[in-house]
């Protein structure tokens, strides 16, 4: 940490990126490279998570029949393509764990957070580049440990993604021994990785802002990541403590969560959901951030109510710490606790309604065009509304007692997470792909992908609300062992066919991604004519991001400003300047 002259520092900007496999990739500290690695990891894990969903859906529609294309899985995991009950439990557990911790977080926080935040605040890199590098390899190790659990004796963890004790606390209950330990280790490493990531994101967004980039000139995506990082850091500790205790219960035989040894299983649920509910917003807010970036660009209007959105985000974040027990209304918590948690849960919908209304108001009267990123953003917004509205039913303890642990809950949280992670994330991928790889994605394939995805998703999960309202319990291997669920088989069959269409509907995305990577139209610096700083540098940006240090002169969403020559005014263009005066 020796003192460095300013001359030396500025010459660094033209310094070439380190090259070669080891220095340029494995140990690269460039946030853009690391962001792309997070992207690859999360997309790979998404395929694994999708495969588990395929097996679950097939079993629900046609129980104990051979799943097409799965005969290669050896016994005792599967039998001639048939999913046995133990493996079904493992599949449900792994689906939740993978999709939340190893897809949603690396995709939204890891990939987009890493790639975009330094660019958006006008910095050359993250505040702690080496910590950034370490956090990726920690997550990679965690993913490997989690996937390894498929191959250890006893198989993958099978206590649900929430790992409720005592089911998770002793091998005799779930029949899984090392799979569960690996699950706990994978989670602990995953959290360590995102603690590093959260600290890095916060420090970068606060300390590395370019001159002129005041807090209220930050793009909303950065605000969302700031809030998400604070929520994560303040909520993850109790769960790590719980994970340590659960691991001790499993390995050396302490009795924190096992009633037979004097423990308290509800304690685990409190620790888990104290993290688990803020975690929902840790995932949701960055998804919202992507939508909020895209809407004004294609509506060609400033975002409606920038400050209202920021304050709502902070309010929602604060409230998210006092709603967790709504996950436990049927767990046997004190009835006197249910009422206050119902109130806070329903209260938290207020800031989200403000955000949603601000998004809709941004669209109103705009000169909206609908290329693929905008389609995904608007699709995510529309889909999320259904997830949000059904959440109000579940927030009320009285209603929740009937609906909890039914497919209503399954449909509800898929209606919140799928729009924010998948639709929102893909909106972001289509939108920032030109910045990441320097080429445009194909519009026709993108639109085909969008329409298949959004229609198929709604066909999968909309019927499940109905199934849940008719009392269909979730997490059961064969629903049709119950007489009253037999008439619901067509619903499951329909949902399963739709899910298969949803999976096949991703083929255009994969084709588009790889085709565009090599043969897409050159993007240029700013293909969407957007204002934020990531578009003020080349695509992909050079090592160190900006050839000239950017200076910020205005708010991030100055579109269609009266009197301006063009309908966008980038943040870095000085007052009175036009597009022609931009550095080029």
């Amino acid at each position, binding site marked *: 940490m020796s003192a460095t002259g300013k001359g030396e520092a500025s010459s660094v900007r033209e*310094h070439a990126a380190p090259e070669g496999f080891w220095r340029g990739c494995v140990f690269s500290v460039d946030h853009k490279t690391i962001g792309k690695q997070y992207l690859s990891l999360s997309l790979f894990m998404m395929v694994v998570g999708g495969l588990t969903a395929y097996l679950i859906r097939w079993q629900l529609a046609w129980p104990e029949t051979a799943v097409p294309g799965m005969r290669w899985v050896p016994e005792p995991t599967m039998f001639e393509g048939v999913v046995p009950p133990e493996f079904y439990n493992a599949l449900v557990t792994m689906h939740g764990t993978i999709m939340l911790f190893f897809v949603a977080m690396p995709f939204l926080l890891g990939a987009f957070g890493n790639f975009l935040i330094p660019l958006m605040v006008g910095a050359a890199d993250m*505040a702690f580049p080496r910590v950034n590098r370490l956090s990726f390899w920690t997550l990679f190790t965690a993913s490997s440990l989690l996937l390894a659990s498929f191959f250890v004796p006893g198989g993958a963890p099978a206590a649900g993604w929430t790992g409720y004790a005592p089911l998770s606390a002793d091998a005799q209950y779930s029949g899984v021994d090392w799979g569960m330990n690996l699950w706990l280790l994978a989670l602990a490493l995953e959290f360590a990785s995102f603690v590093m990531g959260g600290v890095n994101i916060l420090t970068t967004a606060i300390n590395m802002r370019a001159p002129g980039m005041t807090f209220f000139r930050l793009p909303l995506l950065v605000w969302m990541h700031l809030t998400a990082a604070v929520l994560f850091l303040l909520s993850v500790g109790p769960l790590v403590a719980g994970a340590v205790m659960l691991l001790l219960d499993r390995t*050396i035989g302490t009795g924190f969560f096992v009633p037979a040894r004097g423990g308290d299983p509800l304690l685990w649920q409190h620790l888990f959901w104290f993290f688990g509910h803020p975690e929902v917003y840790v995932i949701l807010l960055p998804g919202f951030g992507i939508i909020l970036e895209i809407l004004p660009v294609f509506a060609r209007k400033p975002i409606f109510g920038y400050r209202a959105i920021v304050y709502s985000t902070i309010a929602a974040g604060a409230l998210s710490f006092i709603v967790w027990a709504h996950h436990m209304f049927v767990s046997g918590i004190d009835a006197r606790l249910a009422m206050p948690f119902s109130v806070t849960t329903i209260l938290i919908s207020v800031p989200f309604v403000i955000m949603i209304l601000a998004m809709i108001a941004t669209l109103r009267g705009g000169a909206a065009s609908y290329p693929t990123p905008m389609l995904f953003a608007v699709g995510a917004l529309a889909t999320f509304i259904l997830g949000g509205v059904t959440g109000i039913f579940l927030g009320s303890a009285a209603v929740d007692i009937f609906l909890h642990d039914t497919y209503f809950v399954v449909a509800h949280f898929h209606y919140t997470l799928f729009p924010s992670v998948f639709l929102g994330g893909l909106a972001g991928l289509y939108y920032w792909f030109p910045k990441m790889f320097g080429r445009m994605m194909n519009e026709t394939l993108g639109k085909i992908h969008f329409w298949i995805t959004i229609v198929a998703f709604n066909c999968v999960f909309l019927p499940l609300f109905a199934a849940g309202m008719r009392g269909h319990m979730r997490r059961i291997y064969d629903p049709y062992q119950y007489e009253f669920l037999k008439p619901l088989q067509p619903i499951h069959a329909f949902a399963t066919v739709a899910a298969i269409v949803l999976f096949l509907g991703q083929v255009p995305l994969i084709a588009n991604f790889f085709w565009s990577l090599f043969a897409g139209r050159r993007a240029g610096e700013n293909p969407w004519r957007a204002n934020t700083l990531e578009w003020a540098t080349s695509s992909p940006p050079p090592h160190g991001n900006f050839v000239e240090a950017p200076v910020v002169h205005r708010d991030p969403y100055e579109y269609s400003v009266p009197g301006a020559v063009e309908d966008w005014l980038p943040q870095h263009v000085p007052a009175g300047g036009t597009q022609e005066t931009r550095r080029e």
Partner: protein
Amino acid sequence: MSEPERLRTAAMDTALRPVIPNAVLGMLFFLGAEVMFFAGLISAFLVLRASVETWPPVDQPRLPVVAAAVNTFVLLLSAETMRRARAAIGRGRPDGLRRWLAVTTVLAVTFLVVQGMQWIRLLRDGLGATSGAYGATFYTLTGAHALHVLAGVGVLSAVLWQALRGRCSGEHHAAVEACGLYWFFVAGIWPLLYGLVYLS
């Protein structure tokens, strides 16, 4: 200059001059997570203790209250020496920094050795981690803290190594500041744990 440092310098060049250095700000956020980690452990301790009628249980060995009190004093003393280390480099005195960092490290190791000896004695007396909530919470809470002290010894040694190589000056000592914050946290949370685990 290594590549990350080069990047960081380039980054700092663009940034507004930060009110709080990166290392210190990052450490503050990290400590926020740490506070919540211990809050989780402590709440688990309180919940489990409330479910037992007599605490400490009659058939379990007593904890060494006096020895741990002395050890608490050692740890608090190390916080004071850390403060002096920070103050020394703040006045541009690297020699003072080196001296007080070394004393802090020695005190930290002393604390760990005494803790380890107590653990061994308690295990010999029959307080097992599996013999109920009393033992389990004791070993988990003090163990989690001891691991933090151990990590602290690592951080202190790393900063001391930097100081011995002459890498800290009156202008560049963010690492000392960050290390100091961590150490104040580790030392500061111990009296709370001591009061809960040993005295209550």
